């Protein structure tokens, strides 16, 4: 199987629950959970007294994580949005798949928008740039054909999956550190971890779909995927900072 699929295995030791293959997952996304809330209400809800306030490094990490995730989901949404009309014009049978993937991405974006607001994280300053670049990427790969579009999905989702796994790993390390010290782990962090897991699984599901739809047959596959993956890594690096 494609090396990218091993991403799921790589993170397995950290899971609390076993991860099953994409087929077992329902095809609909649950609506973004519980992200709304005014500041006052949320403060009042703070019940656990034994929790440990986040350190500066942890807050920096979480800010960068939410910011880059929002930017990533924005890009994913726009990529699918740009690909869809071009693709289904030539391959009408892809309509349900594209709609399904787009809907999931849109839900992810909504989730992160809410989290960004709730935790008062600054969105990326390059929002307009990412919008233009993502639309351009989606459109141009779609024009290159079905295989290229799927290879684009493969490359993007591979990077994103690994990226989410890294975040989950760091968060779990934080949690186990707190637990070792006898601190309560706040609900918001637990929710964040489960949200990231769910989204990561859905992204990897998109990766499976892309592979099932001949992503590997794109010409030249290695060039296309490597360029896109390098671009993703660059964008992640920048978005974490700006």
């Amino acid at each position: 199987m494609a090396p990218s699929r091993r991403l799921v295995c790589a993170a397995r030791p950290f899971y609390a629950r076993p991860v099953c293959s994409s087929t077992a997952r329902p095809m609909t996304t649950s609506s973004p959970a519980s992200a709304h809330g005014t500041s006052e209400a949320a403060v009042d809800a703070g019940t656990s007294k034994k929790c440990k306030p986040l350190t500066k490094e942890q807050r920096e990490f979480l800010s960068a994580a939410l910011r880059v995730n929002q930017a990533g989901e924005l890009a994913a949404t726009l990529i699918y949005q740009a690909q869809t009309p071009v693709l289904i014009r030539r391959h009408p049978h892809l309509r349900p798949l594209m709609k399904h993937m787009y809907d999931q991405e849109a839900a992810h974006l909504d989730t992160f928008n809410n989290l960004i607001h709730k935790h008062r994280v600054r969105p990326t300053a390059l929002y307009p740039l990412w919008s233009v670049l993502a639309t351009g990427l989606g459109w141009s790969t779609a024009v290159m054909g079905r295989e290229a579009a799927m290879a684009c999905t493969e490359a993007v989702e591979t990077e994103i999956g690994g990226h989410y796994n890294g975040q989950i790993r760091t968060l779990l390390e934080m949690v186990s550190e707190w637990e070792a010290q006898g601190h309560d782990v706040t609900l918001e962090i637990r929710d964040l971890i489960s949200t990231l897991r769910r989204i990561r699984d859905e992204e990897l599901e998109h990766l499976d779909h892309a592979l099932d739809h001949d992503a590997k047959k794109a010409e030249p596959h290695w060039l296309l995927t490597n360029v896109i993956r390098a671009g993703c890594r660059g964008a992640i690096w920048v978005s974490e900072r700006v």
Partner: protein
Amino acid sequence: MPPLCSRGIPSPRRVLVAHTYQRAARCSAAGRRFFHSNECPPTETPFGAVEDAILAAAYRHVPEHGFSQRALGLGARDAGFLDISPSVLSYSPFSLIHYHLVTQRRSLASQSRQLFDDAKLQSQAQSTLAVSLDGRLSALTWARLMANKDTIHWWQEALAVMAHPSHLPASLNELARLADEICFLAGDKSTDASWYRKRASLSVVYSTTELFMTNDKSRDFAETRRFLDRRMDEVQTLGGIAGSLGQWTGFTITAAVNVLRSKGAPI
């Protein structure tokens, strides 16, 4: 944005020594705009216990003595410290101004709760406060401006100190944090580029109105209130124009692409 008054222009000698203001100091002392945990908010206050005791006591002398060494000295004495004690603060007079900025910003949260709860209670029909974002932004900005009321006769001087090159980064940072706080408390939920636009325009509106207020002799700052309303209207209009322009561009592009598609272009 504090104006660059002539008093704020320092001698080259002072710049050389004091330009060395390090970002880290002030920014992290007050906690930068990082991930905010609602369930487990950070316990640390921006000021240490001793620092807070001296500054809080000195702050009570500001209406009479300004943001000055003298106010700090009197405050230190009130709090039971020595005459030399305030020198533990870096940038003495600025630290007092900074204290004012931080404490007034932090008190906005409780003010907003009062403001909007009351508004909800009386209003339904009559008050737009509860419904419109712009109304809430305006109300909070006004509340923050009124917090300068007692020290307004010292405020031009304070602005000059804030505009000093070694204090400017901290002052601008504090302005940005104020704009962020007001936007958040007003319930702004934008998470795209307009996040920046709203905060930037609010910063401009706030700082110009603040400057206007230092020269306002009218009763209850009525002139300032009108000035603020005009600026808010302008921002709204400009924002509206920018928004419509963006919409129009997007629509035109989509339409053009669709026309080409309908002609059979493979795009």
